């Protein structure tokens, strides 16, 4: 009669961790090992997995395992049985009161909660060729100390490699134009991207998606879905396909379906929490007579076929400058904590579910000046006393200016194209097209707007074509939702140089000049990242405004926080040297085509 199906992130995390470790665990040691170990007290076995590399190489280094007796010590190598029956050979990283935390030498994630009753054996030594090396060997002990103490450094390297593999390899893999599905030579990434666009288009048109082809690589599709945060849209499309055609379900591999549903559920949960928080905020603003004007995702989600289909990272609300202090106090009274105070917005957090940006200006710089005071043209939302909505032309212009900022600082993804398409469909009866075009022309966004609109129409219009072989399409598909770190770095390096001079140098084909400029740009970028300016750091460390002479302390604090919290970002300092002049050239060429070079984008 009633179903009550609970899905826990915690459980999913455990499952995910097991799946990851499965591939790297000691698969070669099968279940019979446990029986032999219990019978004769010791066994020699050869692991198949790579999780203990570089100590143990797969199928090469045999290990001598003795039955465990008593508590293990830190850095012992334990053979234990997971609750799913799998046998694993990993190093003890932490000895708890009643359990252990273990991790392979070639892994980053500690597996917590290994109980005493799961421990079967303890590695006494291993073979290197014909030589037996005991775990009491001084050389081995030195290796253990060195390897375990360098965990942080290895984390940086391995996480960097994983992120690169996940995003750069799949997203940046060169794609060829989509070939007919019946041919076997179609590029897997192109096929997956084309089908992803088809799924999104089906939801936007409230239709059932076509059946996927047999050659579709669901792993690539899942990575693209996750990178562009289209989880709910794709889940909706698949549900619709399954409801319309019984064959559909059999075309989607169970593992991909499970993963996509899990991602969609996670986003749905996030949306409900955000929606709840927004209701609280609105009630608080109403109670304190503070005028508020929802921006970006808060408006866009209602342009989609159903609320919650669009992934929203943070909530943006415009507040009148004179009411900002009161608004911040009202939000803090709801349990939000201040995160940063930048020139045009105050950022506050409420747990993991919502980051709130209270804007007092929409755009700064020249483009913000041209947009003027949007409050003059805003209208009451008709549902509350203090809620307002932007004029449709202002909303669209602001949306495009914001996209242009992201485009120039990391990229924009497929979601932005969907935003453009649904915004036009939602507002086109209410806006003055000529007025909008004049505004876009004035802001310098006409070319950018028309190119993106054409592409959005190409992908999600009445007769979609799903073309993806031009440079703009490639840039958007490889950019993830709001750009990748690599793309942002590349664009930042490109921005270090004087754009016009570089373009001129390229046009004259002065290769040496270009190389030298790029080298200088890379160095300048590295210096700017390691030693940011006072104004840049004051956003994170507001005390710098009062004591600017403490800048070196802020540099150290920032470096420490990156190493501790975002070590993967350090890889960019190494990745940057791989940037080739051609890549920078492509960025400049695209920016020139979209007329973005001259824009003063500080939104």
């Amino acid at each position: 009669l009633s179903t009550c199906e609970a899905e826990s992130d915690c459980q999913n995390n455990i499952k995910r961790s097991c799946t990851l470790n499965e591939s790297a665990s000691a698969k070669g040691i099968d279940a019979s090992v446990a029986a032999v170990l219990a019978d004769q007290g010791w066994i020699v076995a050869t692991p198949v997995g790579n999780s203990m590399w570089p100590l143990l190489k797969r199928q090469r280094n045999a290990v001598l395992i003795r039955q465990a007796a008593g508590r293990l010590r830190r850095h012992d190598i334990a053979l234990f049985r997971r609750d799913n029956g799998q046998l694993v050979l990993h190093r003890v990283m932490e000895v708890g009161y009643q359990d252990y935390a273990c991790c392979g030498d070639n892994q980053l994630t500690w597996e917590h909660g290994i109980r005493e009753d799961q421990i079967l054996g303890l590695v006494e030594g291993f073979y290197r060729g014909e030589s037996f090396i005991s775990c009491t060997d001084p050389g081995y002990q030195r290796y253990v100390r060195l390897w375990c103490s360098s965990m942080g450094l290895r984390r940086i390297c391995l996480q960097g490699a994983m992120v690169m593999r996940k995003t750069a390899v799949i997203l940046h893999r060169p794609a060829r134009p989509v070939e007919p599905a019946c041919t076997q030579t179609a590029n897997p990434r192109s096929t997956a991207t084309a089908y992803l666009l088809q799924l999104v288009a089906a939801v936007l048109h409230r239709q059932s998606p076509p059946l996927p082809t047999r050659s579709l690589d669901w792993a690539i599709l899942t990575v693209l879905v996750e990178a562009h945060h289209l989880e709910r849209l794709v889940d909706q499309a698949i549900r619709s396909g399954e409801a319309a055609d019984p064959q559909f379900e059999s075309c989607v591999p169970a593992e991909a379906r499970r993963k996509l549903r899990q991602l969609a559920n996670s986003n749905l949960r996030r949306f409900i929490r955000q929606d709840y928080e927004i209701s609280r905020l609105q009630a608080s603003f109403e109670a304190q007579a503070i005028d508020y004007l929802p921006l970006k995702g808060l408006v866009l989600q209602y342009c989609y076929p159903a609320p919650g289909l669009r992934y929203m990272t943070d909530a943006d609300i415009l507040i009148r400058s004179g009411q900002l202090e009161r608004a911040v106090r009202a939000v803090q009274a709801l349990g939000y904590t201040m995160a940063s105070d930048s020139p045009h917005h105050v950022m506050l957090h409420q747990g993991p579910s919502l980051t709130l940006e209270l804007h007092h200006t929409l755009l700064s710089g020249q483009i913000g000046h041209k947009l003027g005071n949007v409050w003059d043209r805003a209208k009451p939302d008709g549902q509350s006393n203090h809620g307002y909505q932007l004029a449709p032309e202002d909303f669209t212009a602001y949306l495009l200016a914001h996209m242009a900022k992201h485009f120039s600082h990391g990229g924009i993804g497929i979601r932005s194209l969907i935003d453009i398409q649904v915004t036009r469909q939602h507002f086109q009866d209410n806006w003055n097209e000529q007025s909008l075009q004049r505004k876009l022309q004035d802001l310098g966004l006409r070319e950018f707007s028309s190119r993106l609109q054409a592409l959005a129409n190409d992908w999600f219009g009445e007769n979609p074509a799903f073309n993806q072989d031009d440079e703009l399409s490639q840039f958007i598909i490889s950019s993830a939702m709001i750009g990748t770190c690599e793309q942002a770095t590349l664009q930042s390096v490109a921005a270090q140089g004087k754009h016009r001079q570089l373009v001129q140098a390229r046009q004259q084909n002065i290769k040496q000049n270009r190389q030298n400029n790029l080298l200088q740009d890379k160095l300048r970028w590295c210096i700017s990242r390691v030693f940011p300016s006072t104004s840049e750091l004051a956003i994170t460390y507001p005390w710098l405004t009062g004591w600017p002479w403490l800048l070196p302390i802020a540099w150290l604090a920032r470096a420490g926080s990156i190493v501790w919290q975002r070590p993967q970002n350090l890889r960019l300092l190494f990745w940057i040297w791989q940037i080739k002049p051609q890549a920078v050239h492509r960025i400049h060429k695209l920016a020139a085509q979209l007329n973005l070079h001259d824009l003063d984008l500080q939104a």
Partner: protein
Amino acid sequence: MKIKPGFILRQVAGQSVVVAVGPAAANFNGMIYLNPTGALLWQQLEQGSTREQLVESMLVRYTVDRSSARLDVDSFMATIIQAGFVEP
């Protein structure tokens, strides 16, 4: 009995979904899907209802005999009590 504070029921894309918000989210990061009957009982429990009141609400909404309704209410209650979603 009443649903603990911090659990909210929402209708999204035709589905009834319950998530934890605020401090409750620290202990429950999952999501509960309810069918229409589950959603009806949950809404009643948000206001604080006894077992008999839940049974009555089912008899009003659905064509079902009292004993079947009691069985279904008991089954639902057992599930959500075990999951720790209600307070006495």
